[in-house]
C-alpha cells in the first residue's frame, strides 16, 4: 500500500505540491491527469525518494520514504519507475540493460539474472532484440525495454511518468498495451498520463491535479462522465 499524507514540495518560490493526500491499495491502478506544471510528475519522484518532500510523508508498506533511517536503495527495488525519456543505458545491450540491476543490486547470479531478463523482455515483446544495442530500437521498443528493466527487479509497485509523451503517435499504442497487460495482471500502478482513453479504460481511479492540488479523484466513469470540480470540467472539455 502506498500512503501519501499532506505532501508539500516547493522548487524555490514555486510550490508544486500543496498538500497531497492519496492512498493506493495493492492491486489498484490510479492514473493522474492534469495540465503541465500541476505537480503530477513531481509526486511520482517524491514517492520513490528521488525528490525530498518539504512536509508531509509518503509510506510504502508502512515504511516512511523520506525518513533518515530508510535505505532508499533498498526501498527503490520495490518501487519501479519509468520516465518520459527512455533512459536506456546506451553502452549496454538490451539484455544487459535489464540484467544490470538484478545482478548488481540484488546480487543475482548471472544465469539467474539472464533468465529473469529474458522473461521480462519476452513479456514486453522484445524477445528478438536481446543482443542489440538500444540505439537500434524504436522509441516504443526502448520504452518497453525500460519497463522490462524496472519489472526485472520484481517490484510490488510501478510508477509511470508520462511514458508515451516522447513517442511518435504510431508507437504510443504498443506501450499502452504493455501497461494494460500489467494492470490486468494485478500490478499496483500509478500512471501520470495525457492519454485520456487509457485513463478511462485501465484505471480503478483517476485523479485530476490542478496547480499542485488534487482537485478531484474518482472512478473513471464518474470523473470523465460527471466531473464535479469546475477545473476538471474545463480541463476535460479542452482535451476532448
Amino acid at each position, binding site marked *: 500500500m502506498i500512503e501519501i499524507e499532506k505532501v508539500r514540495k516547493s522548487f524555490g518560490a514555486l510550490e508544486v505540491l500543496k498538500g497531497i493526500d492519496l492512498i493506493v491499495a495493492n492491486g489498484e491502478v490510479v492514473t493522474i491527469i492534469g495540465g503541465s506544471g500541476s505537480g503530477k510528475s513531481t509526486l511520482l519522484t517524491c514517492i520513490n525518494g528521488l525528490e525530498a518532500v518539504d512536509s508531509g510523508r509518503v509510506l510504502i508498506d508502512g515504511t516512511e520514504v523520506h525518513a533518515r533511517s530508510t535505505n532508499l536503495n533498498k526501498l527503490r527495488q520495490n518501487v*519501479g519507475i519509468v520516465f518520459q525519456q527512455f533512459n536506456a543505458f546506451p553502452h549496454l545491450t538490451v539484455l544487459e540493460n535489464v540484467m544490470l540491476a538484478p545482478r548488481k543490486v540484488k546480487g543475482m547470479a548471472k544465469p539467474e539474472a539472464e533468465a529473469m531478463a529474458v522473461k521480462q523482455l519476452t513479456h514486453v515483446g522484445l524477445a528478438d532484440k536481446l543482443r542489440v544495442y538500444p540505439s537500434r530500437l524504436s522509441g516504443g521498443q526502448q520504452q518497453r525495454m525500460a519497463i522490462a528493466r524496472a519489472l526485472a527487479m520484481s517490484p510490488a509497485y510501478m510508477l509511470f511518468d508520462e511514458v508515451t509523451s516522447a513517442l511518435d503517435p504510431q508507437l504510443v499504442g504498443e506501450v499502452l498495451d504493455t501497461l494494460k497487460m500489467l494492470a490486468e495482471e494485478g500490478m499496483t500502478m500509478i500512471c501520470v498520463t495525457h492519454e485520456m482513453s487509457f485513463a478511462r479504460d485501465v484505471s480503478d481511479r483517476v485523479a485530476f491535479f490542478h496547480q499542485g492540488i488534487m482537485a478531484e479523484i474518482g472512478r473513471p466513469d464518474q470523473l470523465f462522465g460527471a466531473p464535479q470540480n469546475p477545473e476538471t470540467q474545463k480541463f476535460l472539455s479542452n482535451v476532448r
Partner: protein
Amino acid sequence: MFETALTGNDLLFLAKGAGMTLAVTGVSVAAGTLMGIIFGVLRTQFGPWWSMPLTFVLDIFRSVPLLIQLVLANAFQAIAQWGWPPFTTSCVVLSLYTAAYCTEIVRGGIDSVPVTTRRAARSLGLTWGQDMRYIVGPLATRVSLPAWIGLTLGVMKDSALVLWLGLTELLKSSQILITRLQEPLFILLICGAFYFVLSFPIARLGGYLERRWSPND
C-alpha cells in the same frame, strides 16, 4: 651519396633518451589521470562554488608555462631540502600539469551523461558508487577519450622540457649528438621519428577504441 658519422651506439643512446621520455610521460600521465579523475568527480559532486579553491589551484597549473613550473619546483625543492632527484621533480610537476587538464576532461565527460539516465539508474536501486561505476564511468570514458589521447600526446611532447632539470630524455640526447656530430638536420629527423614511433600507437589505440565503441551509440 649520403654519409653520416652516426653509429649504432648513437642510435642506442637516442633510444635510451626515448626510454626516459616514455618513463616520465608514463608516470606523469598515470598519476595525473588518477588525480584528474578524483578531482573531476569532486568538482561535479561539490558544484562550482565549493570546488572553487581546487579549480583555482588547477587553473594555476594550466596557465603558468610548464618550463617556469619545472624551474620553480626544482628551485623550491632545493630550498626546502627535500633532495628530490630531477626525475621525481619532473614527474611531480608533469603529473599536476596533466591532472589540471584531465580534471576538466573528466568533468566534461561526467556532465555529458544525462541527468535522466542517472536518475533511471538510481531508481533501479543502484547506489551512487554503482551508478558511477557501471553507467557514468563507461559513458564518460567514451566522451572523454579523444581529449585524453590528445592530452597524453601533448604531455609526451611537453616532457621534452624536463631536459632543463638535467634529465637526458629524447630531445636532450639529440642535442648531445648534434653537438658532437654536427649533423643537426639528420639527427633531428631521427629524433622526430622516435617521437612519432612513441605517439603513433597511442593515437591508433584511441582510434581503435572509438571505432569499437561507436556502433553502440
